[in-house]
């Protein structure tokens, strides 16, 4: 069940970051918990997918830039192209936004009191 825009937005960025953390978390768990076995298969597959996505983004970025450069008539039609999807600025903004949103949620979690809110009412 996916709602809204699966694949797009800051969600994708969030999952990429989560994947980047996985190997470090595995190392930490392996070192600190004697019974923990490093989940090589799961981590390597997910890290490979995430790496391929990042490489795909870089390739996409290059491809679109080349297409834009080739089409001079389009390029000259705008004065400030820094907000175009093919520049790094939207990615930087998305990252900053993601960090801000997550920080706000963590702050809320920190200051709000834990209540039993799971009473079932049918």
């Amino acid at each position, binding site marked *: 069940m996916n709602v809204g825009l699966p694949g797009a937005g800051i969600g994708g960025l969030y999952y990429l970051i989560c994947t980047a953390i996985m190997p470090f978390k595995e190392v930490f768990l392996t070192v600190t918990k004697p019974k923990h076995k490093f989940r090589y298969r799961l981590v390597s597959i997910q890290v490979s997918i995430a790496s391929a996505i990042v490489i795909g983004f870089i390739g996409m970025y290059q491809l679109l830039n080349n297409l834009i450069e080739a089409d001079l008539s389009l390029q000259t039609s705008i004065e400030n192209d820094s907000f175009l999807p*093919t520049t790094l600025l939207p990615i930087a903004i998305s990252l900053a936004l993601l960090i801000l949103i997550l920080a706000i949620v963590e702050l809320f979690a920190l200051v709000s009191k834990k209540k039993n809110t799971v009473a079932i009412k049918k």
Partner: protein
Amino acid sequence: MPNSSSFYQSGYSVKPNVNCFSEKNKDLPVAREICPVTVIVPAYNEAACIADTVNSLLRQSLAAEEIIIIDDGSTDNTAEICRSLGVTVISPPENTGSKAGAQNYALTDIKTQYTLAIDADTTLQEDALEKLYAAMTEPEVVAVCGFVIPQHVKTLWERGRYVEYLMAFTFYKEIQSYYEKPLISSGCFSLFRTEYLKQIGGWSLRTMAEDMDLTWTAYQLGKKVRFVPDAICYPIEPHNFHFMRKQLKRWAHGFIQNVKLHRKGILHVPFLRSIVTVMCWDASIASIFYLTVIPILSVVISPLFLLGYIIDLPMVVIPTLVKAYSRGETWKALTSIPAFMVLRVVNSAIFLEALFKELILKQPLTTYEKGH
């Protein structure tokens, strides 16, 4: 995760199945083992597909103790088909009005340790139950779900859903699972600890996404949910816009209703609070941006802003192709990606409509409508 051969060693209650074959199912394997699972299948006018569902249950490598079809007031011959296949059929006094209602009707009489809930239009891979069962390793694990792949991939909407599932279950759900918080134990195919279901009063009727409600409730109670990617189920997905709209509407309203209901509780569940927040942002703000800001910018400033619609293609294409390649379905997946882009636009528009109705107009969706 124990495999089937280690069931006995790991203390699972598995015994030889001697009584589960009806005369009409002589082609079933003869040396199956039986596990303490009752399968419940809510059905309303499912004559077209219920036989496939029941047969796939009867062919499981690990047999369930009982298969119960809840015939929820069908006007077709759903019940007769099921009886002819040798499974138990029960009928509420009147139509319960929802899948959850039908499931709850059956739940009260379930005596087995585990309950498998599957939709009437969903078939299972032969070892799906065995794999879910094997993941019930700790007492804290109350629900286990599997990988979902559409049974039919022909129409635009089925193709869009096919890509969506391949992408989400290969990448997003695996990561959620790694951090021990799968967002949902899918309503179409999940194994539950019966005791937990009874403890929380069964499937709740208070939202349109009872599976999400059940999952988030579990986390707040300190329970665990597992995702087993090798346990595969094949539901029939909406084949046209009419039914897809109904399903997406139910999902969108269900998500918003669950966020409203659980917002305080999930704030204290690490990782879940992050994925729900990010999902809320993407489904609302990003949808507005996607549907209005990008087209406006492309008209007012430059058509190059339309690139925003395809800039995230690697995020969609790569996980999809990874799974599709392993299934030998690369071409099918590649040709289905445009359908996903269409489905995504429709999904975001329906979500915004649901958001407006739930939060601004205060008109919550309360009527359950079948997705096909």
